[in-house]
């Protein structure tokens, strides 16, 4: 808490109040994040980006929060080595983040633009309220993924998860494309998605590789099998995904995809009397 700043000078939440040391090489800047408080790490990253750095490499990341949060600069890439903390790339506006490790909760929360690639699993609440950009997760994801994803004009967010997901996948979805492959999972016995899949959906589209049981799906969804047009649109997205994780796109497309779309853009239009 901020008040702990007054407990002892130079100590913040048990961390020494110090900026990480920047190692610069051309437009690449490398930081050792070990034992650095998130606030100082992110401040250092923002300063370097403002100073013209194009590639930021963060070593020994161990759960520091808000990496990439609010970064608007295009053409900037942040590489995270270790485990990215909560709210990675939240409110991000155009940068690219690649995580070599797992990511915790809130990846790409309310993200506006840009790209996030996670070579590992990710936690809960991914892409909440996300409006644009691309998120690729190699492995499993947790609960409440893709809730209230939306789209606006040219901005159509895309999220592809290579593993399995828990409950509430795509709940309240208002736009964009969510894809769940169920392939790179550590949970062999689990179904590909949990309950309440697409509940309250009123925009966008969800694709799940293989089939899902009817009881898992929200009553606002229409259930179809992806047809040739759908697959033609999905193919470049999946090719991009497979390239990131060294997977074979033909193997991904070897099984049919279940497609969920909303039955109405106004699911609750008839609930009220005036």
């Amino acid at each position, binding site marked *: *808490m*901020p*008040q702990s700043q*007054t407990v002892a000078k130079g100590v913040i939440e048990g961390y020494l109040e110090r900026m990480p040391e920047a190692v610069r090489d051309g437009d690449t800047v490398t930081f050792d994040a070990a034992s650095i408080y998130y*606030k100082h790490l*992110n401040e250092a990253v923002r300063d370097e980006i403002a100073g013209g750095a194009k590639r930021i490499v963060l070593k020994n990341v161990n759960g520091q*929060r*808000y990496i990439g*949060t*609010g*970064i*608007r600069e295009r053409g900037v890439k942040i590489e995270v080595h270790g485990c990215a903390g*909560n*709210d990675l790339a*939240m*409110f*991000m*506006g155009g940068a690219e983040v690649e995580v070599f490790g797992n990511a915790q*909760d*809130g990846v790409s*929360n*309310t993200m*506006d633009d840009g790209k996030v690639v996670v070579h590992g699993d990710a936690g809960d*609440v991914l892409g*909440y*309220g996300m*409006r644009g950009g691309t998120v690729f997760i190699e492995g499993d994801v947790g609960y*409440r993924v893709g*809730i*209230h994803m*939306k*789209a*606006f004009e040219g*901005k159509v967010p895309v999220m592809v998860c290579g593993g399995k997901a828990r409950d*509430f996948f795509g*709940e*309240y979805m*208002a*736009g964009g494309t969510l894809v769940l492959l169920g392939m790179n999972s550590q949970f062999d016995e689990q179904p590909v998605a949990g309950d309440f899949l697409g509940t*309250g959906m*009123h*925009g966008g589209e969800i694709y799940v590789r293989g089939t899902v049981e009817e009881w898992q799906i929200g009553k606002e969804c229409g259930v179809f099998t992806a047809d040739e047009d759908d697959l033609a649109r999905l193919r470049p997205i999946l090719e991009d995904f497979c390239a990131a994780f060294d997977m074979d796109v033909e193997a991904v497309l070897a099984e049919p995809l279940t497609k969920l779309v909303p039955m109405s*853009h*106004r*699911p*609750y*239009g*008839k*609930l*009220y*009397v*005036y």
Partner: protein
Amino acid sequence: MPQTIIQPEFNVVIDYDKCHKCGRCAQQCGWGVYDFNERPIPDDTKCKACHRCVTYCPARAITIRKHELAYRDSDNWSPQLRRAVWKQAETGGVMLTGMGNDKSYVHLFDHLVLDACQVTNPSIDPLREPRELRTYLGRKPDSVEVESDGEGGFRLQEGAGVVNNIELATPIIFSPMSYGSVSLNVHKSLAMAATRAGILMNTGEGGLHADLFPYADHVIVQCASGRFGVDPEYLRRGAAIEIKIGQGAKPGIGGHLPGEKIDREVSTTRMIPQGTDALSPAPHHDIYSIEDLRQLIYSLKEASGYKPVGVKIAAVHNVAAIASGIVRAGADYVYLDGFRGGTGAAPTIIRDNLGIPIEVAIAVVDQRLRDEGIRNQASIVAAGSIRSSGDLAKAIALGADVVAIGTAALIALGCHVCQSCHTGSCSWGLTTQKPELTRRVDPEWGAERLTNLVNAWSHELQEILGALGLNAVESLRGSRERLRGVGLDAQTCEILGVKPAGR
């Protein structure tokens, strides 16, 4: 069977001897009450008693009467309850309404009175002596560090004192009303008035229209569960950021802007497609705990360059403990919205039955934060039917730093509290997106009226301060000794922290 067994609430009475047959009533009415065939023919069932036609009739030939249909008396089954049952029997729907709770729960502000100076303590002459209303919104330091100024005196050390606070010329701000629920001209009026009066307006959950960018230093930008209009620029643009958890008129439920209100401009500002419903989930799905709230507060700070972040909640039973958690989570202000707070649309049953009065919420939150020694860490903003500068002064004496006004601001712009905001056909052009109606509010006219209201209440607050012998509103804050309860039971007095009159 008749189409409905519900009889109209009002009678539109036209004095045809006076009537010019000009048709202005038909042109002015947003509800479609009037047919015009040589003379206006009203349909009583559509009238909301908003008085737009009455105001604009050049002959003053129109009056609206209550439909004086006698019902068999019953203290239990009021005509309103009977009508609601009929309506739901006809439709099967959830009843919607607008504005704030209209039920006759006790108005605690009307049972509180302020002190005044007599003989033994001099009052301050309101005409000639200064009384400071300036208020700082935000976290205050735990302590201040001073140093010698080298001339035998002291001064604040550099960086000590109040930092990262928003200076308000008077302890009044405009409460959040989204563009979408109200028109763009209302938003412009509020933003211009906030700038002129040195206070703040609040976007609500509808994003910030580009026309308001010049006033952004006087705008609180809101981040609610639907995240409408929230992008990195938006967060950097405002003076402060507010996380909306709840609203006094509809605690615990989400928002729902119907697709027909989402035209091109609203869609651009909210960054959502035209014509689809804008559904705000009931909770933020990234906040299920105080720890999660803290995470969002700090992500907003990280993304905005450490602007003040406030949290708005509805006043509910356990409000003191919740507010304590919010302050400990790092909020710079806590916005409490009482159960009489207004809304653009809410289920009537929620509006009228959930939440607690703002007076109680201010008192218990202020006390709790003081008891825990963290009152300095956040400002308290109080809202939920502040109807006059009397309510304003009493709210501050109970412990609020600032009050927020929404309904009062709309009334200043012509609202007649007809409680039909949810219909999207406001004849006064306030809670509608129909261009033929929204153009009825000229932002310049609106800004002047709102500025007048804020200035008038500020002067009245200064009068009250003078009578109390106080030269700064800071001295009134939380000074419950200057309040007394009239007609309140002992337990209510104890909860409010005030003595009964006579003690």
